């Protein structure tokens, strides 16, 4: 009998920071990525298959939340020593691509609160700059699932965590969920926030001169919403 009961996803390769977790790298997952990476894939398929990956990522992210023991009585009268969910959560998506992950989040966590952050590159300084944020009022009491599909240089994600920390969310209560990460981005992000967990579906080769992830899948938001 194959019981896979490790508490979390696959062991992190030695070269990666300990706060990084990837999904089990199965042939099936690779097939999902092959569909969304292919530039010939239709928008409908891109939506459907990226949603499947996002659902798996959110499920994995939730496993990093604490649970408490809970005993229940089943319909046959037996008792069961289970666990209950503990702690309030919310999602925060980095506009615009991060919004694509909200549907997947809500499929797993009904009516979860979702904050939004808009970060763009400041043309003068070439640094990421916060343009807009709308967050739940009690966000400092919640666990935060930070949503952004692509972790390239890590600039926006780092800025987003800084914003969350300004709102008194402790670093270790943030779980950053993305579909594809570059090794550079992971290194930058984890160096800055070693206590924030990063859940990523796939770690790619690296970045090209325009800071696109290679092989990547192009511009996630563009493919999801526009092209």
């Amino acid at each position, binding site marked *: *009998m*194959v*019981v*896979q*009961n*490790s*508490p*979390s996803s696959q062991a992190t390769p030695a070269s990666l920071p300990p706060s990084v977790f990837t999904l089990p790298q*199965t*042939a*099936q997952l*690779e*097939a999902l*990525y*092959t*569909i969304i*990476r*292919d*530039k*010939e894939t239709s928008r409908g398929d891109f939506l*459907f298959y990226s949603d*499947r990956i996002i*659902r*798996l990522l959110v*499920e994995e992210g*939730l*496993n990093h*939340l*604490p*649970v408490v023991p*809970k005993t*229940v*009585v*089943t*319909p*046959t*009268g*037996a*008792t*069961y020593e*289970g*666990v*209950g*969910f503990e702690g309030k959560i919310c999602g925060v998506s980095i506009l615009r691509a991060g919004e694509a992950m909200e549907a997947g989040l809500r*499929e*797993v966590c*009904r009516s979860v609160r979702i904050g939004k952050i808009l970060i763009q590159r400041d043309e003068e300084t070439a640094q990421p700059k916060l343009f807009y944020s709308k967050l739940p009022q009690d966000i400092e009491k919640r666990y935060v699932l930070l949503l952004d599909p692509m972790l390239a240089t890590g600039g926006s994600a780092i800025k987003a965590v800084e914003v969350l920390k300004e709102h008194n969310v402790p670093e270790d209560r943030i779980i950053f969920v993305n579909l594809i990460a570059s090794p550079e981005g992971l290194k930058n992000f984890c160096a800055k926030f070693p206590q924030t967990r990063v859940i990523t579906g796939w770690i790619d080769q690296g970045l*090209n001169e325009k800071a*696109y*992830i*290679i*092989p*990547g*899948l*192009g*511009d996630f938001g563009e*493919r999801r919403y526009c092209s």
Partner: protein
Amino acid sequence: MEEVGEQEQTPFLDPSPGRPPLSRAVSNTLNPGGRSEFLLQAKKNTILKSHGRPPWYDEDGHAVHDAFVIGVAGGSASGKTYVARRIVQALGSIPTVVILSQDSFYKKHGPEDLELAFQNRYDFDHPDAIDMPLFASCLADLKAGRQSNIPIYSFKEHQRLDETKYLYGAAIIIVEGILALHDPTLRDLYDLKIFVQCDSDLMLARRIRRDINERGRSVEGVLEQYLRYVKPAYDNFVQPTSRYANIIVPGSDNTVAIELIATHVRRKIEDRSRYLRKDLARIGPLDLTLGNPVDQSFPNLTVLRQTPQLRGIFTMLRNSRTRREDFIFFTDRLSTFLSEKAMEFLPYKSKNITTPVEATYTGKELAVEHICGVSILRSGGPLERGLRRVIQDIRIGSLLIQSEDNTGEPLLLHLMLPDCIRQRHLAKNSFVFLLDAQVGTGAAAFMAIRVLLDHGVPQENIIFVTFIVAACGGVRVLQRAFPKVRIVCGAVDPMLRETWALWDTTPQSPSQDGDSGGLGTPTAKTKAEAEAEGRKIWVVEPGIGHIGDRYYL
């Protein structure tokens, strides 16, 4: 009796020109008396059943007996169909009978034959008009318990149609046709050969009356056809085959003969089912409770990773006080997860692609020809939404299996399978997600897997997806009989317990298959009342209760 299968009446039953199938009217007018409503309704080429189909396999999952095949030959208008239907009627409650008509197997005509046919100059009574090899192979499949897709012949178009009629699961097959005993390959397939002997004058009289009354033909035309084709064929090809018959039945006043035949067939069938029941008793309750827990080393059982979230989901589902909307939400969430897991067991192959940033990438793609779901109703239903979240447009067939109240024996009441399983050549390259809420005794799952194997789906292509498996339960029986079937489940529960049916399971609902989900919510029924009812069921513990009831009612 009712029909298995959802297809409408087939075209060849329509009165139309050409060689006519024997009509119900013949038996009505010339053989009065002794017919029930059912007799008049018994369709050809349709599986008829009085109740569900009991197990046809042993504890190892092997089919034990072929179907019992009866060949009925005789002249045109001799009363073959009448005899066939009377046999069905006389068999009483014997389940699943099909009357297979020779008329379905007329050859596909070329343009020349087609022209002749429309001029009434084609000899439909000659053995060459029948596609005997196809007839024999379809019958051989049905006899061996496999599905068959028999041709449909249209008398209106004088042509075999492109569509076919799917048949599966008959315990008794009655083959009727003027040349039913002509072909030696066919003869070898019969367990009982009957020739309906009828006076030539009587046959001609019936034929004239039928063709004039029902088809508006002239006496002249009927006699012309009779003398040119019907009579020579009868003398040369039909009548001589009577020597192969085990029994010659008179074409009229044949009540005694039919009773004798029915008694013989019934005894044969009862012998078989008695043998089976004894056999299945050995894998019954005792074995389940006293046995060791499921073999931990069994490689084809996959249990989801027991993550905190998964345990949380199960805690919600197991809790009898969980609200219905929460139960549905978490069931859907879990079934999505199970479906994703099940997908990992499909084969994948390499694929090269280019990404929008013009990078090349060698990835993977699914390497299956056909994939479908089959849900064991009703409790398999809660797994369907998850499956559709993973394969949006997947075809999902269904099997309705219910256990008989007094014996607990599973009965196959209905099946509706996707085309990629109905067609044998597709089935062998199909992957099937078989869905059921839990494996308690495993009897329903066992039957469902046998149905898929009968259709030619390879064992290793079946992925059984379920929420809970009882460690001491039928999962071991499944493993022993079908070691290559992959089982994907969310949890393994320690207990399987037999109990009085204290809980409310609505009698008219098909949810009582002891296998498919345990119990609903406790009702006011007392233990004494339940014991008086005498119905015991198996429950998985701690379990989820009756998943079908909690999800749907």
